[in-house]
């Protein structure tokens, strides 16, 4: 047995890009001061922060003044849903979401739909998905066209199963209805081309090789919004953010975009190999998500009669860090709402998110140890000939 570690759980927490580390280090020297101050040190920090916003804007197809920085992807999504809903409170309180949105979107939609005490509540309208995890376009178009909708939200791709969502079709329907569309690009930016027909877009630097502790929210100038939180010079995210983290995020994204084509080919090929090999070598396994129209680096499968916590623990002991959507692996007893909405097995789930630069021989070693690891967990549970 080897002590070598292989990290295959890069979703939202990818390894830091070396160029991002260098940029962060440089910004600690030059951009440590408060960018709101007017002295030389403050102005230097402001210049780095503005440069980071400009670079992020260029990579995301937006103008610099449309880019806002938050403390986390979750904070971006919460603020976006709350700010737009409040801006459109005279139109309605309903929020339309797909069933497989990130928990932060679902929770924020529920929060704003509930409304202020004494106010008339709205509804969180959840649109279902098919067996691959793709939202029902016709149902979502109908839902946004109904009266009283404050906003709609749809992800670019599902970070748990990799399936790409039909953003252009839903964006067209939302535009026809005059409803702003929030697009969660958290699992997608840096990995696939991003559609440009959104009103508000949230992106996650931790996912593309920047540091954690920063989120990016892009709000088209035309979007009406209003904070339901106290006023601040940084209106979307009061208090501002770490300048070094912002610079690291911008530099990491420039590299991710420049290296995307090569990383796409490499990781897409590995995911194809994983999908084929797992289906062939593990009995009673369901490989889920769209096999082709998907993120290049995410692959998910569920093993029948397997305890997900035991399997991730077994793989960890053998040197592999993997994710799981099984209930047994979370503090809650509820399994992944994504797997549940798709109607696929929620137990025995393993989710691999391959970082850029993942090594082929590490993936091959994972594929070599997996069948025996699954068999061991099944033996412990007394599963034989079921």
């Amino acid at each position, binding site marked *: 047995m080897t002590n070598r570690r292989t990290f295959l759980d890069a979703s939202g927490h990818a390894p830091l890009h070396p160029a991002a580390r260098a940029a962060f280090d440089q910004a600690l020297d030059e951009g440590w001061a408060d960018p709101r101050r007017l002295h030389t040190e403050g102005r230097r920090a402001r210049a780095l922060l503005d440069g980071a916003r400009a670079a992020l804007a260029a990579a995301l197809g937006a103008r610099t003044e449309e880019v806002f920085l938050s403390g986390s992807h979750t904070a971006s999504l919460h603020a976006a849903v709350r700010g737009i809903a409040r801006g459109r409170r005279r139109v309605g309180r309903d929020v339309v979401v797909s069933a497989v949105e990130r928990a932060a979107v679902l929770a924020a939609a529920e929060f704003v739909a509930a409304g202020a005490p004494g106010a008339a509540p709205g509804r969180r309208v959840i649109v279902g998905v098919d067996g691959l995890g793709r939202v029902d376009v016709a149902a979502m178009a109908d839902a946004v066209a109904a009266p009283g909708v404050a906003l709609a939200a749809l992800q670019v791709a599902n970070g748990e199963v990799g399936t790409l969502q039909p953003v252009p079709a839903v964006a067209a329907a939302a535009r026809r209805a005059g409803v702003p569309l929030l697009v969660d690009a958290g699992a997608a930016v840096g990995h696939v081309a991003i559609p440009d027909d959104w009103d508000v877009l949230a992106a996650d630097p931790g996912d593309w090789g920047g540091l954690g502790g920063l989120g990016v929210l892009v709000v088209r100038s035309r979007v009406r919004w209003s904070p339901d939180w106290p006023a601040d010079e940084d209106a979307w995210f009061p208090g501002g953010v770490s300048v070094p983290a912002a610079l690291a995020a911008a530099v990491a994204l420039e590299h991710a975009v420049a290296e995307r084509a090569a990383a796409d080919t490499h990781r897409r090929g590995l995911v194809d190999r994983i999908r084929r090999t797992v289906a062939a070598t593990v009995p009673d396994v369901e490989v889920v998500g769209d096999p082709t129209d998907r993120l290049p680096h995410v692959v998910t499968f*569920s093993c029948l009669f397997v305890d997900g916590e035991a399997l991730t623990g077994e793989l960890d002991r053998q040197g592999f860090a993997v994710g799981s959507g099984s*209930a047994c692996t979370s503090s809650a007893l509820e*399994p992944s709402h994504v797997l549940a909405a798709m109607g*696929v097995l*929620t*137990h*025995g789930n393993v989710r691999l998110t391959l970082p850029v630069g993942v090594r082929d021989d590490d993936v091959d070693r994972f594929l070599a140890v997996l069948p025996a690891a699954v068999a061991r967990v099944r033996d412990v549970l007394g599963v034989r000939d079921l």
Partner: protein
Amino acid sequence: MTGAEPVVVDARHLRCPLPVIELAKAARDAPGGTVLTVLTTDPAARHDVPAWARLRGHALVSIETVSGSDRVAMTDGDVLAITVRTSG
């Protein structure tokens, strides 16, 4: 159909994936066409029993919440009764 009484598998308070495993053991030992009901307090079973049935070619008959009814004593949390008919 065998015409026999439906088989009840009491998997209350077992956590995933044990309810599905207990149901699968009962299904293995029963003739084709047997109607089996699993009682479970595991929220994952609502999704995993139908997925198991689909993988094995069994038919899903019903999913009911039965807490507080006469069929089972009240417990902490909801009790689901999920019924399938085995293939063959």
